[in-house]
């Protein structure tokens, strides 16, 4: 499939902490088409960031291990790429925008110094060219006074400005894919609106694919073409964004959407999912969501459900099993 820019197959990642090992990614499959925005939603700890770091090759070397699976970017499998080759991809073919604009910029270097880095790494450019390129990109993300800003330090900028700088950093290499890991979570709503709009515009202009990680269904609704729902290290549902909101198949996705305050009558109790997200070391046999699922039956506690596919809609739930569809 040549229109796939990224394809992740059965990814499993394991961490060593002390003498224990945990496996926060326990089989993840998804793909992004060229020009598409794919949303990944899931609650804290569901493995969104780990997955994205794996794609960037930025997992901690000593303590983490990809125990199985492939990450195919542009036809190449990244899981067994050498560090040196990976470096050529990063900031060039794939870029990343991180969650915390406050801490993601180095406090002791000027904005200009930090922005020139991907150019120094991937392009042969003179100092002048580098500077003008940076100023161009900064203008593109709507930063005023770009000529001055490049000589300033991160702490002199506000959160929104820093996130814009982060976005411009990602844009510099003109990548085919941008991964944005909760790019607006740390920002205020009004600033979030600015940044989301900016990202939409930029994606359109530059013809890139966007992997947008978030825990906010609103952001998904606003930005994405397709959505992957993660829960405790697994993908439980994948669908077109409209399809997902109109016809969620997995009880977890249903629960999430139902519990949005806007879906509930004012001043009444909200729909809620009981219990809490299991920690990676609490995961047991069967479906990972079974202990919180209002529809769970025996099988759910015994066997891990397979992926059921209905067109472009996938769900990992026994309810979709054709042999067992007595429940609504």
């Amino acid at each position, binding site marked *: 499939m040549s229109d796939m820019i990224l394809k992740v197959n059965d990814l499993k990642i394991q961490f060593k902490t002390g003498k224990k090992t945990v496996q926060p990614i326990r089989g993840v499959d998804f793909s992004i088409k060229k020009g598409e925005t794919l949303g990944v939603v899931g609650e804290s700890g569901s493995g969104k960031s780990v997955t994205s770091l794996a794609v960037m090759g930025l997992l901690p070397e000593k303590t983490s291990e990809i125990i199985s699976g492939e990450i195919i970017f542009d036809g190449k499998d990244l899981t067994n790429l050498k560090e040196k080759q990976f470096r050529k991809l990063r900031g060039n073919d794939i870029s990343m925008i991180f969650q915390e604009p406050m801490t993601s910029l180095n406090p002791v270097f000027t904005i200009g110094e930090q922005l020139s880095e991907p150019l120094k790494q991937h392009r042969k450019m003179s100092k002048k060219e580098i500077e003008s390129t940076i100023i161009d990109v900064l203008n593109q993300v709507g930063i005023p006074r770009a000529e001055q800003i490049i000589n300033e330090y991160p702490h002199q900028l506000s959160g929104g400005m820093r996130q814009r700088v982060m976005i411009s950093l990602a844009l510099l290499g003109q990548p085919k894919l941008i991964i944005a890991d909760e790019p607006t979570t740390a920002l205020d709503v009004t600033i979030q609106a600015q940044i989301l709009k900016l990202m939409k515009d930029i994606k359109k202009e530059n013809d890139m694919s966007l992997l947008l990680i978030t825990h906010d269904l609103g952001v998904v609704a*606003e930005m994405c073409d397709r959505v992957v729902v993660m829960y405790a290290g697994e993908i439980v549902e994948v669908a077109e964004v*409209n399809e997902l909101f109109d016809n969620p198949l997995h009880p977890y996705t249903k629960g999430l959407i139902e*519990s949005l305050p806007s879906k509930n009558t004012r001043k*009444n*109790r909200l729909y*809620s999912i009981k219990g809490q997200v299991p920690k990676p070391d609490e995961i047991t046999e069967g479906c990972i969501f079974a202990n919180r699922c209002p529809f769970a039956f025996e099988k759910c506690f015994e066997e891990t459900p397979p992926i059921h596919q209905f067109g472009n809609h996938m769900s990992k739930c026994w309810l979709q099993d054709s042999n067992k569809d007595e429940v609504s």
Partner: protein
Amino acid sequence: MEAKILLEIKNLKKHFEISQGMFKEKINVRAVDDISFSIKEGETFALVGESGCGKSTTGRTILRLTDPTDGQIIFKGKNIENLPYNQMRSLRNSMQMVFQDPYASLNPKKTIRQILMEPLRVHSKFPKEERLEKINNMLKIVGLSEEHLDRYPHEFSGGQRQRIGIARAVILQPDFIIADEPVSALDVSVQSQVINLMLDLQKEFGLTYLFISHDLSVIEHMTDRVAVMYLGKIVEIADTEELFANPKHPYTQALISAVPISHPTEEKERIILTGDVPSPANPPSGCSFHTRCPFAMDVCRKVAPEAKEFKNGHKANCHLYTDSEKKEEKEYAINHS
């Protein structure tokens, strides 16, 4: 049936002096700058606004967790802004707080039993023998059980901790609870559980809430009245439904319009504000919102707007409405921009 006023805030100010390290001059942060509002018995009053606008500071000042710089705090008809620590202490059994961070607000060295026993002991509430029973009851109400009594906070999840925090506040059966972003730190699926709990408790004990949040959809769902803050000032107060239906202040409008859509097919008109929130240490002159306001006029840069009252206690501080002749026209302009 006009409800009694439980809490009234008049011209409250709280300024912080902070030293900027050794190389810079001290700056004066006007975290809360002359705000007034009142909360009726049994209602849920919301404070909303962007980060750093002074919501928490307002809450903490009302509870006298920090001392106000100026202004009045009248609780149940009694001025409390100058009460000394020990007199304030005895008042605290009727006003309590739920904190944002469920991890930081419980002493890691105390068991749940100790944490819940302390308020009872301090205020000599209930006879000694009954206290444990009350605690067990409370635990049940917040969805925990007796077997959790001797555990330490770190053995609980965030949602459970927040419930313990709520239990601690409610166990004294106070009249008034300030909840400072009680759900912001929680996972989406847990957030609704905690909101439900708060709604239940309000029903059961007839509580009055001051609910601080930046999440407009939560506010819309569970509060009765809302005050919108910007840079230490209240720019608009209204009944919740009224505010969401008919926001007056450009900032409120922008805020509401910035909330992400809840369904992909939803169309939404957006007022995208330019620029960032200015620092409260150095607020703009005149109307502090004028730097980002799409309708800013000359007067906005110079004169701070007075509150303008609309129907049903809906108030907004904006020059657009002070000029009574052009009022209609401008309202129209805003609503159709």
